[in-house]
């Protein structure tokens, strides 16, 4: 017997498992073709807005923030050791429309979806974020992100710490 039966089965099973991976990986890879900016209909976007409280007291890390752990545990937030999710807003925003969401400290966030901004073969979204205090506008920014991408905003003081917004948006239709 040149090769044991167990060895054969072990390799067969490992090989079968590895066969699954390329399919998963390929699903995540963006098309390689470079295409110019395309004019697409505004469609609709779905956005998750995580409102996070970062403080220097304690070492707890909210399990619901796992997708953002690498960023929150990075150098930019090295002054903070405790991260908790205050609220997660799920917004569905039509093209050209806005959705408001509550920001602690009697502030209000406004997220606007200005439409698709595909480029380089990637599906991209153009969004505007505003943070308001009543009628006063504290911050206003327009940005373009990849479909499923995340942008973070931080710095507003709140309860012996700061507020961090993690905004992840996807094209819905």
């Amino acid at each position, binding site marked *: 017997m040149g090769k044991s039966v*167990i060895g054969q089965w072990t390799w067969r099973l490992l090989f079968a498992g590895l066969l699954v991976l390329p399919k998963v990986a390929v699903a995540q890879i963006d098309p390689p073709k470079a295409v110019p900016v395309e004019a697409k209909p505004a469609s609709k976007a779905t956005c998750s807005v995580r409102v996070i409280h970062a403080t220097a007291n304690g070492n707890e890390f909210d399990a619901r923030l796992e997708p953002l752990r690498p960023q929150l545990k990075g150098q930019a937030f090295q002054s903070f050791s405790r991260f908790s999710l205050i609220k997660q807003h799920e917004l569905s925003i039509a093209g050209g429309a806005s959705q408001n969401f509550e920001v602690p400290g009697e502030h209000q966030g406004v997220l606007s979806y200005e439409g698709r901004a595909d480029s380089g073969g990637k599906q991209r979204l153009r969004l505007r974020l505003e943070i308001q205090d009543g009628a006063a506008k504290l911050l206003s920014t327009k940005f373009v992100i*990849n479909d499923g991408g995340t942008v*973070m905003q931080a710095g507003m003081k709140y309860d012996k710490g700061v507020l961090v917004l993690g905004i992840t948006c996807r094209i819905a239709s």
Partner: protein
Amino acid sequence: MAVADNKLIRLFDNELPVDEADALRLELSEEDNAKLAALAELSSSVRDAIESEAAMHEVDLWSTLQRQLPQQAPAKVVPLRRKVLVRTTAAISAFAVAASLFFALRTGTVRDSGCDVEELEVVGSGATVMKVADDRGNDTTLIWFDHQEEDEWESL
């Protein structure tokens, strides 16, 4: 009448058909019976002699054959329980690898954002735009807004 010697020998050796042997036995004379008895005695003596000779020279065929066989490593004998355990471990490992990569690559995790900030206006002393790398080398854009005291706010 005396039976021919060759027939007697065949009778002794049980080489005759049964009916012929039975018929022949009825015809045996005293001389024939004496010849049969002598044959029996001779046969017994020869058998004893051969057996004693064989006992003196024991033949070991197996060791000779074994030397002639091609050398092979002894086959591995694995208990069934261990076999099943190894197979199960392999199956679980394969599944775990596939599952961990699936979870690592699924859409729930933060992907490369490719964020381009086109406009940024803030009140107060300003804001900083920085790239925060995750453990897979993807960048996430962070807009750090230097928060002002309430009485310093003014609308954009």
